[in-house]
């Protein structure tokens, strides 16, 4: 499906989704609570078949966090970017590690780097950072470490 067809299909799936212009791919912004049912449909509906998650990351916009999921289909070769804005005080979103297994590691990385809490994640602990870093999230914009960080 091209972007236009994808847009029509997704509007029927998720009427509350907001589409963003720009970039090569269709961007859809949704409420965090809509993410899990929407993800299941994207993965399992034959017409969409987004079986490959090639990127999962987070952006710190100072006022809020934005989760960014890049999905593609090995069958139809179409791509989709899904975003969800999270409250910085309580950044909770459902895990999708049981839908796309690659998300398990990527979510652990986002958890330690941004402090996003992935609800129902099977094994949410530090992956890259050493023990004792819980609560400090290096990729947040307000993170500061005068000892280990070299300012460029």
């Amino acid at each position, binding site marked *: 499906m091209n972007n236009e067809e994808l847009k029509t299909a997704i509007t029927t799936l998720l009427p509350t989704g907001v589409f963003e212009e720009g970039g090569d791919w269709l961007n859809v912004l949704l409420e965090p609570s809509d993410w899990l049912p929407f993800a299941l449909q994207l993965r399992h509906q034959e017409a969409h078949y987004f079986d490959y998650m090639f*990127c999962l990351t987070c952006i710190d916009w100072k006022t809020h966090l934005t989760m960014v999921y890049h999905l593609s289909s090995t069958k139809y070769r179409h791509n989709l970017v899904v975003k969800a804005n999270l409250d910085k005080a309580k950044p909770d979103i459902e895990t999708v590690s049981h839908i796309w*297994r690659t998300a398990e590691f990527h979510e652990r990385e986002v958890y330690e780097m941004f402090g996003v809490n992935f609800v129902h994640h099977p094994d949410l602990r530090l*992956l890259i950072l050493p023990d004792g870093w819980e609560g400090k999230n290096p990729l947040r914009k307000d993170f500061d470490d005068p000892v280990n960080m070299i300012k460029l």
Partner: protein
Amino acid sequence: MVEELGSNTEGDLIINVGPQHPATHGVLHLVITLNGETIKKVEPHLGYIHRSIEKMCESLTYRQFIYVTSRMDYLSSHINNHACALIVEKGMQIEVPPRAQVIRVLMDELTRIASHELWWGAMAMDLGAFTPFFHAFREREAINEIMEETCGARLTMNYMVPGGVLEDLHPDFQRKVKEFITLYKRKIAEYDDMVTGNIIFQNRMKGVGVISAADAISYGCSGPTLRGCGVSCDIRKIYPYELYDKIEFDEVLETAGDSFARYMVRIREMNQSIRIIEQLIDNIPEGDVQAKTKAVLKLPKGEFYQRVETARGEFGIFIVSEGGTNPYRIKFRSPGFSNLSALDHMARGSKIGDLVAMMGTLDLVIPDIDR
């Protein structure tokens, strides 16, 4: 981590492989739960070489950030640099001169061969053969010499820049590459005699570390790991960049999904890279090697994504720009990170001795995983 050592309540043995272990090819730490000789669980502990390149890039300009990406997947540094150059060119709509495009593809493919050579030697050494390592390094040295003459570096090239390449080719480039092709064609038969056709190697690799196509896709595997399962995923073919849609080459696919399939994909991929180089080496157009660009590069406000095929798989760069001279947020999607996440799934139920054969054919480069 100390309390994890020893054994758990079920009587399983818990051992550490790494962070300093010859089979992990770098500072990778695996905590393995064993029942007798059977693996029950493999848990990677990462971060021993984590430099927070993503955070670092937030304070680097679009000309500077290329230099740190060479330090991620240091065996594919040209290809990493290529991705950086492409994303800036895409954002700023810079036209790359034809000569630079050809040079870039040539360098990418030479890098791919060099990387696969090193993998081949190291993997054979993991499985107990020392000789192939020296053979592999002899051929790799020929490529490194070519690189050194043109780029001035042997490992961290930093040769591709937004708009083209840094310098023109060395006058000896074409002659040396042709010499290398002759050498390679003579030697690749030796590789097959020594390792590929060797029954001991085949027994150690066939049926080991099997992963199904559906699982490999779900784990986000890419490159030879996914192509070994018969899934077409070569970025050069499915989302072509640079000249790859105008060049003739085949995407290498195997269907078994085991270590031997991944091995064969890489061996056959080297031949395809030679095929690409042969098509281009006599057809390098004359002209500039770098487009005229502004002194200060500014990406427009928005989000950009560029993916390329490195020797290990799909490498992606995601940039969020606020319109300034440096990225607001940058994310590197490294192929090794996702490939490693599938190791636990592959290894469960197999013997500890086979773990080395699995890791060897995943071709892990740790700085690429940790970033």
